[in-house]
C-alpha cells in the first residue's frame, strides 16, 4: 500500500496489524456477545471503522479466539522472562520446580477469568478440524515455554514425557476451571496443586514399580525352580 505520491504514509499499517488492532478491540465485547462476528463488529466500531470490517474474518470467531490465545501466551512468556531476569540479578529466589509450574499455569489460566463465561464456546471452536493445527501449535509452544523457563534441559525422551505431562495438567485444570464456582477459583488452584504433586511423584513411583516388578520376577523364578525340583524328585521316585 502506498499513498498517491508513491510514498508510504507515516501511519502506514499492514493489513495484519490492522486485523490485530480490531481483534484486540473486540475482546472487550466478548463477555457480552461471545466469540462472534458481533463482538468483532463492535470492536471495529470503537476504532472508528465500519461494522462491515468484521467481514474480514470468519463468521465462527476462530481468529478472535486464536488471537486471544496467542496474546495470552505472549503475556505469559514476558512474565516468565521478567521473573527469570529477577532471579538472575539475585533479586528473587529461584522457585522449586513444582511451585514454578503451579504458578505459571495459574498465571496463564487467570487470563481467562474475564472471559470465563464464554470460554467453553471458545474451547469447542478451537477443537474444530480447521483450527486444530493452529490451536495445537499455540498449546505446544506455550507448554514448551513454561518448561524452558522452569529450567528444563532434557535432551532425551524426558523432553517429550515432561511436555506431555504438563499438557495433561494444563488441559484438565482448564476444564475444572470452567465449572468452578468457588471464590477466586480456589478449588481449581487446589486441583492444580494436586496434579502437579502427582506428576512430581510419578518419577518416584516409576522407580518403585520397577523394584517391585524385579522382586516379583525373582519370587516367581524361585517358585518355578522349587516346583520343577519337586516334580523331578517325584518323577525319579
Amino acid at each position: 500500500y502506498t499513498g498517491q505520491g508513491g510514498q508510504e504514509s507515516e501511519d502506514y499499517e499492514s493489513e495484519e496489524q490492522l486485523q490485530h488492532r480490531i481483534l484486540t478491540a473486540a475482546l472487550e465485547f466478548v463477555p457480552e456477545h461471545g466469540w462472534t462476528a458481533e463482538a468483532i463488529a463492535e470492536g471495529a466500531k470503537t476504532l472508528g471503522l465500519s461494522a462491515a470490517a468484521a467481514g474480514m474474518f470468519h463468521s465462527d470467531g476462530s481468529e478472535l479466539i486464536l488471537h486471544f490465545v496467542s496474546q495470552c501466551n505472549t503475556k505469559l512468556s514476558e512474565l516468565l522472562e521478567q521473573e527469570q531476569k529477577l532471579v538472575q540479578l539475585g533479586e528473587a529466589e529461584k522457585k522449586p520446580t513444582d511451585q514454578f509450574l503451579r504458578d505459571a499455569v495459574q498465571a496463564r489460566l487467570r487470563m481467562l477469568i474475564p472471559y470465563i463465561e464464554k470460554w467453553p464456546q471458545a474451547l469447542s471452536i478451537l477443537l474444530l478440524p480447521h483450527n486444530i493445527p493452529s490451536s495445537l501449535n499455540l498449546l505446544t509452544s506455550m507448554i514448551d515455554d513454561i518448561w524452558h523457563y522452569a529450567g528444563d534441559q532434557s535432551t532425551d525422551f524426558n523432553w517429550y514425557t515432561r511436555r506431555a505431562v504438563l499438557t495433561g495438567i494444563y488441559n484438565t485444570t482448564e476444564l475444572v476451571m470452567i465449572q468452578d464456582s468457588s471464590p477466586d477459583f480456589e478449588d481449581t488452584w487446589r486441583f492444580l496443586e494436586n496434579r502437579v504433586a502427582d506428576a512430581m511423584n510419578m518419577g518416584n513411583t516409576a522407580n518403585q514399580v520397577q523394584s517391585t516388578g524385579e522382586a516379583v520376577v525373582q519370587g516367581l523364578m524361585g517358585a518355578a525352580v522349587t516346583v520343577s525340583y519337586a516334580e523331578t524328585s517325584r518323577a525319579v521316585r
Partner: protein
Amino acid sequence: AGGVSLRRCSTRVNLEDVNRPVIDRIIRVDHAGEYGANRIYAGQMAVLGRSSVGPVIQQMWNQEKDHLKKFNELMVAYRVRPTVLLPFWNVAGFVLGAGSALLGKKGAMACTVAVEESISDHYNSQIRTLMEEDPEKYKELLQVIKQFRDDEREHHDIGLEHDAEA
C-alpha cells in the same frame, strides 16, 4: 524427584535472527547421529572391549561422547527438540555395533568405516547449507560441525588402517 536445574544465562543465542527450521533440523539430526554413534561404539566395546582393538575403539568412543555432549549443549541453547526416535536409535545402534563386532575385528572396523564415511558426507552437506545461508551468523555452529567432520574423517581413516591390518 527429577532434579530440574536452572540454566545459567551464558548460552543465550538470539533465536529471533536464526533460520529456525533449518537449524532445528541440523541440530536434531546431528544429535541423533552422535547418539547413535555412541551406541554403536558401545556395542562394539561390549564384544571387542578386551581384544587388541579395544583401546582404539574406546578412544574413538570417547571422542563421540564429547561430540554428543556438545550437541546436548547446542540443543538446549537453540531450544531444539530431540528426535522422538531416540529409544529406537538406542537399541538399533547397539545392535549394529555388537553385530558387526561379532563378525570379528574386520567386521567392526568395516562398520566404523562405513558409518564414519556417511557421517562426514552428511556433515559436509550441512556445512554447505550453512555457508549458503549466512557464514557469519552461523560461525560458531560452522566451527563445531567442521571440527566434528574432521574428527569423523579421522575415525574413518583409523577404521581403514585397522581393517587392512586385521
